């Protein structure tokens, strides 16, 4: 994308029918550090890479609890993300107060999307520079949504945003069909594997990542460092191959997972024919 004469205002269309400021805002999302979400029928896992600027500083908070049944992971301008999280928490709490009932995720994301859209149609505003992965539960089950700075939102089985997210998406595209019936533990494992893909060879440790989960009967919370490191150790002991067979219980993983590794390429080939819309990112307008 190069500079052109139509990209100064968000309210200026280009002759090709594009709003460049909005597209530039989506670029900001791509520059942020990776965030990943995946869901099964009963759980949603959000995972993100938390890299501190220097050894001296702490890392930025990228996952926010919005309510007991909703959490959000952000990528891009974290300040914008914080402000939007505050808005979401407000909406949830007001709904809870009036109706004594949790706000359905689907409604929250629409409100969020409408809020983002306003910023694409006012000359005195700018689009939010943050992408949000909203995971939550409502009457109809577990949901994962992605909210764009453009004001669009999409529902996903699994998705990744931020820098080097394509690597994670490639992994998720292979595995997503198994997520629906996945167990809680395997869902978290898959999130860690996907997260590892974005690190491009760097060692995955619990100090550079954050994992959060919400599920039926389980309020949204972040897993503590020890638990996460324990899970990482489990699959690193086995070997580098992620399990192809979801039925293998993690405790007995040691022998069987290595044996199942050869089956992975075969399963991947079968997955190639999967429908393209789930897990694929129509990020561009």
């Amino acid at each position, binding site marked *: 994308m190069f500079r052109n004469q139509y990209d100064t205002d968000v309210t200026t269309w280009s002759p090709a029918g594009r709003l460049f400021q909005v597209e530039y805002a989506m670029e900001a999302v791509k520059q942020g550090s990776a965030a990943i979400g995946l869901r099964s029928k009963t759980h949603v896992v959000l995972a993100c890479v938390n890299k501190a600027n220097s050894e001296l500083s702490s890392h930025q908070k990228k996952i926010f609890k919005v309510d007991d049944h909703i959490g959000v992971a952000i990528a891009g301008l974290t300040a914008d993300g914080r402000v939007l999280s505050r808005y979401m928490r407000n909406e949830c709490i007001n709904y809870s107060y*009036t*109706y*004594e*009932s949790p706000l*359905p995720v*689907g*409604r929250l994301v629409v409100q969020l999307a409408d809020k983002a859209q306003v910023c694409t149609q006012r000359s005195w505003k700018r689009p939010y520079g943050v992408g949000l992965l909203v995971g939550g539960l*409502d009457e*109809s089950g577990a949901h994962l949504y992605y909210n764009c700075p453009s004001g669009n939102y999409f529902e996903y089985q699994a998705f990744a945003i931020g820098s080097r997210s394509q690597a994670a998406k490639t992994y998720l595209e292979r595995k997503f069909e198994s997520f629906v019936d996945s167990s809680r533990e395997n869902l978290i494992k898959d999130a860690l594997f996907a997260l590892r893909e974005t690190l491009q060879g760097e060692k995955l440790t619990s100090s550079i990542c954050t994992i959060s989960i919400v599920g039926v009967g389980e309020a949204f919370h972040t897993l503590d460092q020890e638990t996460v490191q324990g899970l990482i150790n489990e699959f690193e002991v086995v070997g580098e191959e992620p399990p192809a067979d979801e039925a293998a219980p993690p405790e007995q993983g040691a022998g069987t997972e290595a044996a199942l590794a050869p089956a992975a390429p075969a399963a991947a080939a079968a997955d190639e024919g999967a429908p393209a819309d789930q897990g694929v990112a129509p990020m561009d307008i």
Partner: protein
Amino acid sequence: MNFADSASAMKNLLGSEGDSQRTLYPYVTGTSVVAIKYKDGILIAADMGGSYGSTLRYKTVERLKPVGKHSVIGASGEISDFQEIMRYLDELILYDNMWDDGNSLGPKEVHNYLTRVMYNRRNKFNPLWNSLVLGGVKNGQKYLGTVSMIGVQYEDSHVATGFGNHLARPILRDEWHENLTYEEGVKLLEKCMRVLLYRDRSAVNKLQIAKITEEGFTISQPYSLKTFWDFAAFKNPTVGAEGSW
């Protein structure tokens, strides 16, 4: 805050003859509503009377209405305020439907919304002069609650408003049990309504019973209860009273 300010503020709040902006007394009122949980859902009964003070003026007032797919509301108190409440609820349900997603407001949500409305009006010294019963079934869960004009709300297996609290609830405490059949439930409600008919001066002998189940809302046609007046004590009531006729 100095004294003069608070005095004029109080005057504004409590009003004077000049302001016609808030409800001071009720005019056309409905009497008791009685409701119970039964095996398949909720049964709710109310008569069709609208009293104008001590005059039994209107005899075809529907005081039971469906709310959305899952709930039913019954109101006693000022009828015009009930009509206002129905406008609020119709708008609430409309916006809920306009989301067009898999979610809908259940009886618990509607009940709490009403509680907020009633309590907020009470705080502004401009109440909706009603006692409401809200019941319904959603995803197999039965719900029955009530909210008053001052915003007091609670849930129970059987509720009533007004005189129903004094005359019907004791009967229900003795005779209500889980998993009443539809016929048993109707009989129980009719027993309560009959006592109210005998003893409540604002009751009229024309009632409706509505039920709400997972399938939906149905309301009976208006009908009357049989009453018995053939007590020996009612014969020759004036015998022994000198000077009466």
